[in-house]
């Protein structure tokens, strides 16, 4: 059980991480905690997407679900005074209903591959346009903010942004829930059914698998997770915009981070989130520190991280389609199989 051993070592480290960050980077711990929080929130969203993505359901529509999660929660709070404790479930329900409304005809009509990707892309655009179009409420393309409640830390308003350590533990718990859901799905019969359906839909249906229902189940879970992730993102950032939490670029980022990390392993999406977030931060910091680059490109230098990102994605998909973690685990498994059994392994 490699996973459980990783958990035994990893979990205490993750719980102690704010303390470690405090000891190592005393002055700038806020910045590092912010980075960690971002990674955990996106990891949760990516894990949610990978539930569908691993079965060949490559959706470009999840930017719509994160957008629904964030916007419904904030709008209900700002305009109806409804606490996010009710707003978030409402947002999740709406996201799941939208997912099922789009998913049912898709799965029923056997729309897969390119067509599925392009259709879900249309969903993302539709939701983004609705957000921009309702600019009297949503602030249009400028985005909007949840109304601050008291000093910004409140259980009732689900606001916790000023306290980074508290925020960290909240999103850590969220991330663990995400991994648990992934694990449950991975161990369920549905997973085998969906694996079969992704290999050959007709054959799977012929042995009695209700392909449409199985796909709808996993779609609903996946959409719910992305909506929840989007809502938490909005509550933490205290700002939501149609391009930061909804839209095509969010959808593409989700897909790419999952592929970079590894689609078929539990921590793959998390590794993808660490990789993409750290990469863009490192590039950003180096560029801001480099006078030569600044002089050459001015403020356009900020695009360099997207440039490197795009290039890496091309290389990943061509040369490492299993992702970072997937490839590493595969190599380790091969090595373990090739190496002669060690004496202590026999005795234990």
């Amino acid at each position, binding site marked *: 059980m490699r996973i459980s051993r990783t958990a035994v070592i990893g979990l205490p480290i993750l719980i102690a991480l704010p303390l470690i960050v405090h000891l190592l980077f005393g002055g700038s711990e806020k910045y590092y905690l912010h980075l960690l929080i971002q990674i955990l929130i996106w990891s949760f969203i990516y894990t949610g997407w990978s539930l569908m993505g691993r079965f*060949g359901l*490559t959706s470009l529509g999840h930017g719509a679900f994160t957008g629904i999660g964030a916007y419904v929660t904030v709008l209900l709070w700002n305009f109806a005074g409804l606490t996010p404790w009710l707003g978030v479930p409402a947002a999740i329900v709406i996201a799941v209903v939208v997912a099922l409304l*789009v998913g049912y*005809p*898709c799965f029923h*009509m*056997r*729309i897969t*591959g*390119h*067509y599925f*990707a*392009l*259709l879900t*892309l*249309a*969903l993302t*655009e*539709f939701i983004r*346009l*609705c957000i*921009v*179009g309702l600019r009297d409420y949503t602030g249009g393309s400028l985005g909007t903010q949840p109304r601050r409640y008291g000093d910004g830390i409140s259980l009732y308003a689900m606001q916790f942004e000023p306290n980074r350590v508290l925020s960290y533990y909240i999103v850590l718990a969220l991330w663990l829930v995400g991994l648990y859901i992934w694990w449950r799905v991975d161990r369920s019969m549905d997973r085998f059914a969906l694996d079969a359906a992704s290999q050959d839909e007709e054959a799977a249906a012929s042995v009695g698998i209700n392909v449409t229902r199985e796909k709808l189940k996993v779609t609903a879970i996946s959409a719910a997770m992305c909506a929840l992730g989007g809502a938490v993102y909005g509550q933490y950032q205290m700002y939501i915009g149609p391009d930061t939490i909804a839209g*095509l*670029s969010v959808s*593409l980022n989700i*897909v*790419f981070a999952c*592929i970079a990390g590894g689609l078929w392993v539990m921590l793959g999406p998390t590794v993808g989130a660490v990789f993409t977030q750290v990469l863009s931060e490192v590039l950003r910091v180096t560029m801001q520190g480099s006078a030569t680059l600044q002089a050459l*490109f*001015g*403020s*356009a*230098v900020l*695009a*360099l*991280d*997207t*440039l490197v*990102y*795009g*290039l*890496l*994605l*091309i290389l*990943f*998909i*061509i040369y490492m*389609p299993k992702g970072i973690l997937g490839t590493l685990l595969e190599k380790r498994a091969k090595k373990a199989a090739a190496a002669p059994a060690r004496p202590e392994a026999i005795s234990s």
Partner: protein
Amino acid sequence: MDCQLDIFFLEAVLNGLLLAGLLALLALGLNLIFGVIDVVWICYAELVMIGMYGIFYAHKAGVPLLLAALFGILLVALAGAVLHQVVIRPVLDSAPINQLLVTGGVLFFLQAAATMAFGVDFRNLGIRFGSITLADMSFSYSRIITFGVALAAMLVLWLFLSRTYLGIAIRAIAQDRQIMPLMGVDQRRIYLVTSAIGGGLAGLAAALMVLQYDIYPQIGLQFGPLIFMICVLGGLGSLIGGFVAAFIISEFIAIGGSCFATEWGYAIAFLFFMVVIFIRPQGLFGGRS
């Protein structure tokens, strides 16, 4: 909501028709590649953007507009061939979705490269052709030229595909990928030529778009999703279908835009697209599913 059947409504309808010409041309190249190679270039609109910048800078450097347009077409044709050779070729045998995603990486790359090279400013050629006024309705000449050239390009492509050896080989490959190599058609060469033609069509669209639109690195995000939608709505590989779909979509945009706000025109178009695909997954004019 001032949506009456008056002269402004008619103007919106006719302007929608003119927009349809451009969108149909944009969809044409993607449709060709989609139909022949079975790959979706998510970065197709970004190639158009590269072409627009190419034409803009060539014209700024003193090249006459028509020559600059020719340069743009060749530039994007070359870009299409390079894209196929460098990025698509290595993933031709892997899962179809990887081919779509790898061009998504190209999308990020091209957008960022354009931002770094040309900045985020809006640029335009500053050429105005003026407009024609018909019974209180005004239509800009650049839109009318675009419409005419787009129609001509579609006719030429159709003649090429139906009358020349190469064109027939391209259509044959699209119909049966396994058999044609056995008949002595070099599949790799056909793919490369198709990619270059698809790129060239994107370049032609770019040449027409610089007459009407501002150039900026994110312009692809404005047109890209529309182009995919038109391709799928019209039906894979159906040139007529592409045109009809472009017409429907642009009328939604034009009429919706004139009655409500621009975003709602687009939003209704996307909703319409989803509903149609649920009913007819193969598209309006698609033969195969």
